[in-house]
């Protein structure tokens, strides 16, 4: 029941803040914070309860709920929580609070409807991370699109409608292909066993011909690759990220991209182990292309948000590489990368929002010398830029390092090429820090430094990055069992990841 309440709290507080905002806007914001905060506390509670004691081996899920829904097709409202979901849920609510706080002064129009959409996106994302029934998963997958579309389309910047529509169409087309794949999988399962079901665990061991397995896998893969985004499907991302309001960018980069990676880990690898192994070299190559392509384009950007958007393409390339490397180290690295990228990129978008609020531009060339007038904000900016370029001691480094370590065992040449991406990362990271904060203050900016509210947003994000960077063990402990299960399903071979 805890899992259902996580979603219900978000849905109801979304409606509540829409209603309340007509009378009092600030209390609507507080209701939103309270809703996400309550979920955050509940999730932390579940985390503490489940990491302390020794886990019984037979139990796969920490929490589970399972209701009958549409019996004709064997659809059950089945939610389940394991370590992977738990870690991503913590990230979701953390960034959710960040998103609400960062739009405190930015959003002044239709405050209630804004928070309604924000909370419903979070509810959709929660559902995606929890669903253990493929129909329910698809439902939430689509459900998070509509409020996101509104967030970009109503409160975005100049070309918001173009960006929002492009985002929606890309995800919808790929999503429908996944729907066809989901239904076909259920139909194949029904033909072999006689049971029509969409339940994740029952579908895991569906027997099918290699050809149909490959096609179905591609159906799933397209949906996740668009969300991730993997290289040829990424074109919606720079537009959507750039045009979205700060909260929208934070949620897009921090969470929506992660749902794609989560889908690959949760569904593609275990459901289609054969094709995943077979196509792994191709997928890894796509990942490496993404790393280089994103990094090179990021170097060339002049718009701060666009720059950060392209770094996301690059970082998610590492995630794709790690997922398909086929060993547990790389997989753990990929998930760590997902979490720390969520925080560091989210923080960079918050920073871009803060800068835009102050100087009304996102052009890096318009900035320069900001350190002089805003030392604290510039310092924070430097930290996040360093995190994004993979400085040891901060979160992203751990993820990228583990991914490269794991990939090295499988494919040395790809690892070498991927490492070049880190080089380009240094370029764009330094270029951003240098161009925005250092140098002479040519435009004579005189700006207020960080306020208390902004400290409360960025401070914890820095702490989290440091924590993951210096002591990632608690996170790895949380993830290990569920990732081992995934790995076991995908590659039934002796595990090599436990030696560390």
């Amino acid at each position, binding site marked *: 029941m805890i899992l259902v309440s996580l979603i219900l709290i978000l849905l109801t507080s979304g409606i509540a803040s829409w209603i309340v905002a007509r009378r009092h806007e600030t209390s609507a914001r507080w209701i939103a914070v309270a809703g996400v905060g309550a979920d955050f506390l509940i999730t932390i509670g579940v985390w503490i309860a489940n990491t302390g004691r020794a886990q019984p081996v037979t139990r796969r899920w920490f929490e589970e709920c399972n209701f009958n829904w549409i019996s004709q097709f064997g659809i059950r409202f089945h939610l389940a929580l394991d370590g992977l979901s738990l870690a991503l849920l913590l990230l979701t609510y953390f960034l959710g609070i960040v998103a609400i706080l960062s739009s405190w002064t930015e959003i002044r129009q239709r405050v209630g409807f804004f928070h309604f959409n924000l909370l419903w996106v979070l509810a959709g994302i929660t559902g995606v991370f929890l669903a253990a029934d493929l*129909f329910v998963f698809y439902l939430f997958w*689509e459900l998070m699109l509509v409020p996101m579309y509104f967030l970009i*389309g109503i409160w975005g910047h100049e070309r918001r409608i173009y960006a929002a*529509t492009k985002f929606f169409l890309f995800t919808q*087309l790929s999503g429908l292909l996944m729907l*066809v794949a989901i239904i076909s999988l259920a*139909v194949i399962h029904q033909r072999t066993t006689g049971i029509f079901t969409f339940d994740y665990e029952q579908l895991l061991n569906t027997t099918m011909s290699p050809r149909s397995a490959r096609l179905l896998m591609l159906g799933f893969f397209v949906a996740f690759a668009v969300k991730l985004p993997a290289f040829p499907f990424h074109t919606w991302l720079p537009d959507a990220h750039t045009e979205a309001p700060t909260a929208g960018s934070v949620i897009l980069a921090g969470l929506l991209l992660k749902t794609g990676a989560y889908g690959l880990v949760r569904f593609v690898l275990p459901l289609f182990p054969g094709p995943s192994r077979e196509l792994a070299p191709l997928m890894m190559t796509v990942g490496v292309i993404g790393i280089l392509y994103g990094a090179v384009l990021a170097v060339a950007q002049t718009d701060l948000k666009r720059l950060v958007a392209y770094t996301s393409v690059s970082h998610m390339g590492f995630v794709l590489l790690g997922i398909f490397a086929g060993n547990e180290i790389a997989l753990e690295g990929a998930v760590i990368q997902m979490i720390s990228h969520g925080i560091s990129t989210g923080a960079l978008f918050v920073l871009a929002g803060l800068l835009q609020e102050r100087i009304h531009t996102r052009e890096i060339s318009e900035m320069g010398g900001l350190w002089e007038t805003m030392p604290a904000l510039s310092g924070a900016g430097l930290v996040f830029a360093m995190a994004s370029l993979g400085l040891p001691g901060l979160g992203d480094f751990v993820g990228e390092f583990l991914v490269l370590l794991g990939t090295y065992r499988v494919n040395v040449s790809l690892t070498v090429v991927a490492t070049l991406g880190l080089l380009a990362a240094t370029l764009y990271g330094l270029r951003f820090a240098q161009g925005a904060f250092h140098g002479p203050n040519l435009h004579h900016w005189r700006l207020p430094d960080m306020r208390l509210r902004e400290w409360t947003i960025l401070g914890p994000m820095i702490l989290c990055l440091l924590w993951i960077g210096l002591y990632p063990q608690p996170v790895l402990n949380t993830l290990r069992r569920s990732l081992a299960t995934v790995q076991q399903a995908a590659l039934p071979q002796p595990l090599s990841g436990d030696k560390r």
Partner: protein
Amino acid sequence: MNVADFVALLPLITISVTAVVVMIAIAIRRNHKVAIAISLIGVAASLMSLSLAASNAPLQITDFFILDSYSRLYMAILLGATGVVFLFAYDYLKRRQERPEEFYLLVLLATAGAMVLLVSRNFASFFLGLELLSVALYSLIAYVRTQSTSIEAGIKYLVLAASSSSVLLFGLALIYADSGSMELSQFATAMTGISGSTNTIPLLIGLMLVLTGIGFKLAVVPFQLWTPDVYEGAPLPVTAFIATVSKAGMFAFLLRWFHVHGVGIAGTPGLVLTLIAIASMLTGNLLALLQTNVKRILAYSSIAHMGYFLVALVAGGPLGAPAATYYLIAYATTVLGAFGLMTILAGSRDEATSIDDYRGLLWKRPLVASAFTITLLSLAGIPLTAGFLGKFYVVAAGASQSRWILLFTLVISSTIGLFYYLRIIVALYSQQTDSGLVESSARPLPLPATLVLTALAALILLLGVYPAPLWDAIIAVTRDLG
């Protein structure tokens, strides 16, 4: 004919009697309120008489009619839709029309025609119902005599519908000449081509000509040319009626004719229907992209939606007929909601048809705009709406019969479709401007129509969240079919 037969036929009889009573009432004294009251009571009585015969086994009455649970379900759909059209039409006609009473009479007649379509088991009674429906529609489309677009649309429909009817008649003649029978069940196997028997050329030509006539009524490509003009020209309640009752009646007939358990439609008819489905899905959605008039957009979108129905129909199998039926219910509910809210917003002179009229509607009329958003999302097939589950069901039917080409066309075309639904939604949510509905924004919303609209929006969500009872009913009903 015995008592049981009469009980079974009671819904049809009730509706016909109501039409006569309305006519007499108008002759005695014109009164809008009395006319709608009689019509609504008639529809309600007819709905209630459905339940009287609910327990009966399938009943064949003469060579013409068959009354089974399938036809009762569809009759309930038609009657419900007619009732909703009445409620929306009342306020609309009060504002715009000097003599609104005959509208109810004509709609009742058309409904009776559509009901005959879905109980017929014989081509003769089918033609009877079709003409009853069409003739009433000619005058309904041209009902607003002060507007030239309405008259133009009426004449266009008259000419095209009459010629399609004659094509259909010629097809029936060929069939009769070749086989000496008009009975529907004789030709089910001919269409599905399972028996392996080769059809004679005249029979095949005849069947294709009949399909042409049916395709015209359903407005599938290449018989769709009348749709946008008629949708645009007809008064809004009539457009709602054409989009739901007229199409549902014809679709129910098609389903009864073709439905065979186990396999889908194969052979030449299968190929033809597949092509029609693909062409309808693509043409409808692509042409809708070019429109700026909401009525025309919905007209093209209806062409595409008929293509989705055909996917379920062609796929067949145990899921085919239930999927098509559920899709029809979802579509009818949604499209009634869409046209209904346009009816509510229509001014006393002009209907709000341009997308620009809806700009910033959310901030002026939040209730109507929310309902519009729900209907549009349902048309686009976004989860938690009836439209999504309809699409899910259709895809499941197609996938279980491995109709991959149809499914991929469906995926691509519904993505294209999303684009124009989003355009309307963008307009609804855009910044408030001075364009848009100036006249009607001062006027309070009519109460009955608003209540019905709210109920429809709630129904769309309910069907999208908890469809299980309806699905069970549909499965039970389609089991006695074919």
